C-alpha cells in the first residue's frame, strides 16, 4: 500500500521536474530595476516571438541587484534605472530609453507654476502653506522618494540639495505609490516619472504635472531634450558577452521597439 503511494509521489516528482526538451534552449537571464523590468519583459516577449529557440527570463529586484548579478554571472543582462557610475567601469552600458521626472500636484491644486526657489523652499520645509506660493490656503504635504533611488539623486542634484535637506512628510518607494499618495491628498506635492504621470492623469487620476523652468513636463519635451530633468534606463553587460548578446541589445534598441517603449511611457533613446 505504502509502496504504491511512494511510486505515485516519485512519478509526480519526476514528471514535474522534467523540462520539455523542445523548450530547453538558450536562455538570456535579465535582472535589475523594477522600473525597467516591465519594459524589458515586453521586449523579451517580442524577441522570443522572432527567435523561438531563445528564452528571455526577466526578474525584478532592484538596480543594485542587476549590477551584482551581472558581475557574478547569475544574470546575462542587468537593468538599471540610471547610468553606470565611475566604479562600475568593469561593465558596459547601453542606453535603452529615457525617463523624465516631473513634479506633480493634486488636480484641485490650481497653482500654475513654481519657480526653482519656491520648489526648494517647499521641499526644505521653509514654506509650509500653499498660500505662500500663490495657491489656496492649505498645508503642503511633501512627498519624497526613498534614499538610494536614482530619481531622488537626480532631483537632489538638479536642485543642488543634500539628502538631509529635504523635510518630507511622506516617503514613497515606487512611482505608482507616489501617484496614489498625491492623488489621495489635495495638498500634496511630489515627483514621479513623467510618462507615468501623463498616462495616469489622462486616465482620470486626479493629478497634474507641473512645468519646470518654463518647460512643460511632457514626454515630447523629454524626447527632444528641452526638459531638463531626465534619467537614462540602461542595459548593462559584461564586456566579454558583447558578441553573444548583441542580437538582443540591438533588437531592444531598434525602431520596431519604439512603440513598446512608448507604450510603457518611456522615451526611446535611439532615433
Amino acid at each position, binding site marked *: 500500500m505504502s509502496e504504491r503511494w511512494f511510486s505515485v509521489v516519485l512519478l509526480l516528482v519526476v514528471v*514535474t521536474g522534467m523540462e520539455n526538451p523542445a523548450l530547453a534552449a538558450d536562455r538570456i537571464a535579465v535582472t535589475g530595476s523594477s522600473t525597467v523590468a*516591465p519594459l524589458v*519583459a515586453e521586449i523579451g516577449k517580442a524577441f522570443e516571438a522572432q527567435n523561438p529557440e531563445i528564452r528571455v*527570463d526577466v526578474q525584478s*529586484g532592484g538596480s543594485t541587484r542587476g549590477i551584482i548579478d551581472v558581475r557574478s554571472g547569475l544574470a546575462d543582462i542587468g537593468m538599471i534605472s540610471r547610468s553606470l557610475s565611475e566604479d562600475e567601469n568593469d561593465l558596459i552600458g547601453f542606453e535603452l530609453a529615457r525617463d523624465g521626472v516631473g513634479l506633480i500636484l493634486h488636480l484641485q491644486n490650481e497653482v500654475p507654476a513654481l519657480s526653482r526657489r519656491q520648489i526648494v523652499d517647499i521641499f526644505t520645509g521653509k514654506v509650509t502653506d500653499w498660500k505662500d506660493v500663490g495657491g489656496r490656503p492649505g498645508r503642503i504635504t511633501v512627498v519624497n522618494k526613498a534614499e538610494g533611488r536614482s530619481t531622488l539623486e537626480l532631483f537632489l542634484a538638479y536642485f543642488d540639495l543634500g539628502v538631509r535637506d529635504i523635510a518630507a512628510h511622506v516617503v514613497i518607494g*515606487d*512611482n*505608482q505609490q507616489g501617484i496614489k499618495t498625491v492623488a489621495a491628498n489635495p495638498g500634496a506635492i511630489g515627483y514621479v516619472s513623467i510618462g507615468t504621470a501623463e498616462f*495616469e492623469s489622462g486616465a482620470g487620476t486626479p493629478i497634474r504635472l507641473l512645468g519646470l523652468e518654463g518647460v512643460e513636463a511632457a514626454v515630447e519635451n523629454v524626447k527632444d531634450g528641452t526638459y531638463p530633468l531626465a534619467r537614462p534606463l540602461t542595459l548593462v553587460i559584461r564586456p566579454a558577452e558583447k558578441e553573444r548578446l548583441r542580437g538582443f541589445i540591438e533588437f531592444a534598441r531598434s525602431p520596431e521597439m519604439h512603440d513598446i517603449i512608448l*507604450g510603457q511611457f518611456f522615451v526611446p533613446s535611439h532615433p
Partner: protein
Amino acid sequence: MSDSFSSSTERGRPHRIRDALLPVAAHLGALVLCGFAFWVIMDIVWRGAPGLDWSFFIDEPTSAGRGGGIAPILVSTGLIVITAIAAATPLGLAAAIFLVEFMPTGSRFAVWTSLSLDVLAGVPSIVFGLFGSAFFGLWLGMGFSILSGGLTLACMILPLLVRTTEQGLRMVPDDWRRGAAALGLSRFSAVRLVLLPAAGSAVTAGLLLGLGRATAETAALIYTSGYVDRMPSSLFDSGRALSVHIYDLAMNVAGGDENAYASALVLILFLIVVNVAAMSISDFLLRKKVST
C-alpha cells in the same frame, strides 16, 4: 450545548454584569472584524469585477499585464502553493508529534524548537526572500524557480502548522493515550488512528492558515520564484505568483490598477477553491475521527 444553562447565578451582582458584558464584547469584536473584512473584500469586488471575464482566466498577460489574462500566473501560483504545503505538512506534523508525544516537555530540545518556531514566525518576509534566494536559489542551485519559492514559503508556514497541530494534540485527554496503550496499540498506530484524528480540526485549521499565508506572501516570492509571467513548464521554471502580479500591476506598471483589482478578485476565488479543497482532503484523511 449552550442552551442547557440558566442565564444567571446566585453568586451576586459582579457576575450579572459580566454575564451581560461578555456577549456584548463577543458581538462587538465579531462585528468589528466582520465589518472591516467585508469592507475590504467588497472594495476589491467592486473595483475588480469590471475587469473580469472568461478570457481573463485563460489568456496570457500582454502589455506588461495591463491586457490579456493571468492564466500562466494562476498555474504558477497553484504550483507554488502545492509545493509549499507538500513540503511543510510532513515536516510540520512530524515536528509537532515529536514535540508532544515523544519529548519530555521541559527538555532543551523541545524548548529550543519551540522558541525557534516563534522567532521564525517573526522573520520579515523580505528577509525570507533574500535567504531563500541565497540558500535554495544559489547554494542548492535552484535559481529563480517555483520550487525555490515553494520551499521558502514552506519555511514560512511551518510555525503555523506546528503550533496548531501541537495545540491540537495537547488538548487530547491523556485518557485516550492510556486507552490506546491498554489496547496494545503501538505509538505509531495510536498517533495515526486515535490522536491525529482527534486533533483533526486543529490540523485542518493549521493547514488553512498556512494556505492563506502562502497565497498572501509577496516579498519572499519576488526573490525566489521570480517575475517571469510565462506558463511554467516545470517546477524548475521561474513563475510569477498572483500576489507578485498584483503588486507589480498596482505599484510598478502605469495603468495597471484595473487588472490589479481584477487579479485580486481572482485571488479571492482562488482562496475559496483552495480552502474547499484543503477542507475536503483533510476531512477525507482524518475521517476515522472518533467523536465524543
